[in-house]
């Protein structure tokens, strides 16, 4: 038996197919992951993301610490509640994890890191934090619910009630508001509008039920994966890890080079790589033929093996197979994928494939 979130019993009651995910017993789907995918694109779906690790950082030097810890620059966070996506790198520029950091006040930042990388992340963060006298507090007392889709926010507003709704209804994208004992963030991993809501674990089941009563339906990790892939969002461990840098992972946009005097872990290695040029890049693939692209299938460019698929699946919105692949930097607009011995033509495209319910291809 794995670890269970406060919503585990809700999943079982809803006939979820439970699978192991990084040591957690999590719902894969509740019947059909494709129906759940369409629901998020067209209406609203609920995800239990309580397995993710929430870390609160406090102390007067927290901002300075994060300026050093993260490849993106927390000085971009000026307004309370603003969030930033960043990689946390090792000295070689390899990605230890990707995360979202929220600025709440000058002595309170919150980070949400992946579940599967929890122990190594916490060890790394704690080691680095010593030099800055920052207090690191893991918030295992909190659960997290994502409600995503074009109708997600209106459903959440109805559950929050008028007094609290006022505090969140005008939140901009990538902003968080603290509302009583909850934190409501306009973030997500689906390419749709919606909220991620952190709240005391003992209140999670009631809140989940209230969202269901408003019409939101539970969605599992299966739909979460096809949604994020369509939306062009990387998955840690598949699309990047400690052996790859952000520059090789289509995450250049998350590295803040300016100001040049900001010293962050991995900076020297990245600068060197930027100067010599990357050998491999992460690209999107789209297949017009029938079939489904799978992780680790070989990608062939100009007759030579060039790399492999890092995340392959079927796009329910496009009705075609899509993938991310790490290939040689010389890749053009066409490639082939070795699918069970057959070489199939694919188009090389720049993700996202789908945003706000619409094809970008």
């Amino acid at each position, binding site marked *: 038996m794995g670890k269970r979130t406060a919503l585990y019993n809700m999943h079982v009651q809803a006939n979820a197919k439970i699978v192991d995910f990084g040591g957690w017993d999590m719902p*894969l*789907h509740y019947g*059909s*992951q*494709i129906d759940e995918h369409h629901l998020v694109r067209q209406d609203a779906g609920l995800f239990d993301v309580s397995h993710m690790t929430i870390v609160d950082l406090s102390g007067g030097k927290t901002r300075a610490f994060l300026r050093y810890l993260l490849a993106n620059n927390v000085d971009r966070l000026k307004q309370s509640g603003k969030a930033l996506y960043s990689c946390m790198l090792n000295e070689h520029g390899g990605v230890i994890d990707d995360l979202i950091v929220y600025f709440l006040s000058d002595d309170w930042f919150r980070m949400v890191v992946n579940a599967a990388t929890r122990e190594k992340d916490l060890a790394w963060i704690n080691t680095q934090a010593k030099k800055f006298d920052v207090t690191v507090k893991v918030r295992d007392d909190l659960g997290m619910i994502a409600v995503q889709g074009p109708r997600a926010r209106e459903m959440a507003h109805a559950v929050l009630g008028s007094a609290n709704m006022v505090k969140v209804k005008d939140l901009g994208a990538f902003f968080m508001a603290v509302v009583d004992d909850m934190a409501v963030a306009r973030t997500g991993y689906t390419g749709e509008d919606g909220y991620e809501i952190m709240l005391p674990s003992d209140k999670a089941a009631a809140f989940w039920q209230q969202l269901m009563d408003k019409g939101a339906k539970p969605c599992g990790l*299966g739909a979460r994966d*096809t949604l994020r892939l369509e939306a062009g969002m990387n998955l840690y461990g598949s699309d990047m890890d400690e052996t790859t840098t952000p520059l090789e992972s289509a995450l250049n946009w998350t590295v803040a080079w300016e100001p040049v005097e900001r010293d962050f872990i991995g900076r020297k290695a990245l600068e060197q790589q930027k100067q010599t040029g990357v050998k491999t890049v992460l690209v999107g693939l789209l297949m017009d033929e*029938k*079939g*489904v692209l*799978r992780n680790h299938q070989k990608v062939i460019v100009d007759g030579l093996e060039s790399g492999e698929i890092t995340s392959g*699946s*079927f796009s329910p919105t496009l009705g075609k197979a899509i993938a991310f692949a790490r290939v040689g930097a010389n890749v053009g607009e066409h490639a082939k994928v070795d699918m*069970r011995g057959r070489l199939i033509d694919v188009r090389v495209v720049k993700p996202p494939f789908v945003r706000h319910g619409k094809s970008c291809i």
Partner: protein
Amino acid sequence: MSNVPQELRYSKTHEWVRQENDGTLTIGITDHAQGLLGDLVFVETPEVGSNYETGEDCAVVESVKAASDVYAPLAGKIVQVNTALADKPEIINSDPYGAGWLYKLKPEQPGELDELLNAAAYSAQIAADH
């Protein structure tokens, strides 16, 4: 629990077989198999008129999760395929023993049918797999 209809025969590789009055056999994949695969997104059916040996792979069902070969539970010639699956492979998920059938086969040796598993034996097999 997976549905295992009493009146059908089964292969160890999760195909079901129904004897029709005209001597042909209708073949599909079991409820247990579709449950393991999850949402089906593509189905490759065999060509009408082609012949297969017992245990030969003759179709492919592909889900979001995995691609899986479908084997001929007994030797014979394909006489009809379910063309509706090309546009709606998810019928296999919703109705594996009905509208989600894959193909009809005219067996070389109808007696081979008796060598397949009955419902009780197939149920025991999938219970043991767990």
